[in-house]
């Protein structure tokens, strides 16, 4: 296959353990490398490997530029998995997978008690609070992957002008739905958790619900846009959920 060379360029498949394999596409944070990760993640999710009777692939951990595959080596010999990965990458069509990316709009009430660090971010970046909100809600962010805690998205696309260092002392409890900036990243806390991100606001949306299917509103590869809403809308949406 001609596409094989290109698609697998720079790719390495490493045994992470006797039951897991790490596919590494590169060692930097970039949209292009992450697209290849998400593509392989989708291909493996859809592939017959998971649909067969036994749980041959138990878990998939996409990250910035790599995919960890946790599998049962007695049901799926490592050599077979390696061959399958090469085959999927050879056939993959990144453009087609981009077309099925979901666009998710997340309403956020910025500032006030829901966004206690908005003023600090404004001061650090030299923008007015209104301009911070405008700049934060303008881009379309990409969910590179979900990790750290249930439903926590690692997103790319924060304008460099908004980068603000994390708090020196993390908060012991950050409310669920909080949206913030940590260094050059933005994200949101789906569950109440401890954390050191600068909090800009909060979404009334429930981002992680173990009873829902799927439990996480965001999936790896999603495109995200934050929409500013008023405190009244926030309260109404919380009351209505």
């Amino acid at each position, binding site marked *: 296959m001609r596409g094989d060379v290109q698609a697998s360029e720079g790719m390495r498949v490493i045994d992470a353990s006797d039951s897991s394999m790490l596919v590494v596409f590169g060692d930097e944070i970039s949209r292009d490398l992450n697209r290849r990760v998400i593509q392989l993640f989708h291909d493996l999710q859809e592939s017959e490997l998971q649909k067969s009777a036994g749980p041959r692939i138990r878990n998939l951990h996409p990250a910035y530029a790599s995919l960890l595959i946790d599998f049962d080596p007695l049901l799926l010999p490592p050599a077979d998995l390696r061959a399958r990965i090469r085959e999927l990458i050879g056939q993959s069509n990144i453009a087609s997978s981009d077309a099925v990316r979901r666009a998710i709009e997340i309403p956020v009430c910025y500032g006030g008690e829901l966004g206690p660090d908005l003023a600090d971010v404004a001061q650090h970046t030299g923008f007015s609070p209104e301009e911070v909100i405008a700049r934060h809600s303008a881009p379309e962010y990409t969910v590179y992957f979900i*990790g*750290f805690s249930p439903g926590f998205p690692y997103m790319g696309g924060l304008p460099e002008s908004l980068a603000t260092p994390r708090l020196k002392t993390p908060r012991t409890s950050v409310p669920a739905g909080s949206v913030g900036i940590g260094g050059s990243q933005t994200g949101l806390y789906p569950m109440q958790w401890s954390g050191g991100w600068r909090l800009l606001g909060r979404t009334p949306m429930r981002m992680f619900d173990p009873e829902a299917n799927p439990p996480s509103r965001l999936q*790896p590869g999603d495109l995200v846009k934050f929409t500013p809403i008023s405190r009244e809308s926030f309260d109404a949406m919380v009351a209505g959920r």
Partner: protein
Amino acid sequence: MALRIINPGLMTTVQDLGRYGYAHLGVTPAGAADALALRVANLLLGNDENTAALEMTLLGATVEFQRAAIVVLTGAQVDCRLGNAKAPMWRPFPVLPGAVLKCGAITGGARAYLAVQGGFRLKPVMGSVATLRSAHLGGLEGRALKAGDQLAVNHVAPSGVRRISRQAFAYLEPRRELRITPGPQASWIGPEGLQVLQRGQYVVSGDSDRRGIRFQGEALTLPPKSQLITEGISLGAMQVPPDGQPIILFVDQQTTGGYPKVANVIAIDLRHVAQLRPRDEVHFRVVTVEEAVGLLREQEEWLRKAFD
């Protein structure tokens, strides 16, 4: 209600074999730390292997049975009394309504399992009842059990129990030599680093838990200015933070992380990791992935033949 916690011991949680298929949503599997002890408990009782049991840590629980039941204790040796009689390990026994099973110190390991024929009636969360305390998922309200908690037991037609054959017992002996395969960043410490890991002994530190077992020993040297972008973490990965002291990431670990992983405990030795206590001394030995898979196959063959 059929089982009431009188005293939860040090840390007792409900665990099955884990919540798989959600790592891409940041949900780590959790599940029994000593999965083989749980599987054997269930097979002895005629339960499905994945049936949940109580995982007790260092100090056992005291429980009252409000209904007759057939139960079994597996894992590390735990000093349990049923009335005045000492309760057996690895052998199912009946309890009468009103019976109190009092479990004391766990010795020779860190974790013991109390399983009940029929299993507990708990609502699975994302396909599993395994307790993940950090995310408040599974078990009873996603937390460790406390005094006064009640767990319903599923009604099942009483069925025969099984026995572990005498010759099969040897396989269950604890190990203090943990076998490892090189991890994704093994080259960061190089062959010399793997030698360091294998020549010394490493002592389990007190701040170990289900998320990770921390060790103190000869420090591993990482290359200067080495940085890793966050990637997936496998069960049993040996992570090396900047201080050079290894941590084995365990059942409640995060799904992703940014420290280098220089080695990984082989699948069948994870149950020995589960049984490590603070101040235990271990050795590490490097094996190949092929050997590790072969040993896993042997374990599954042992399990098929372990019962009379």
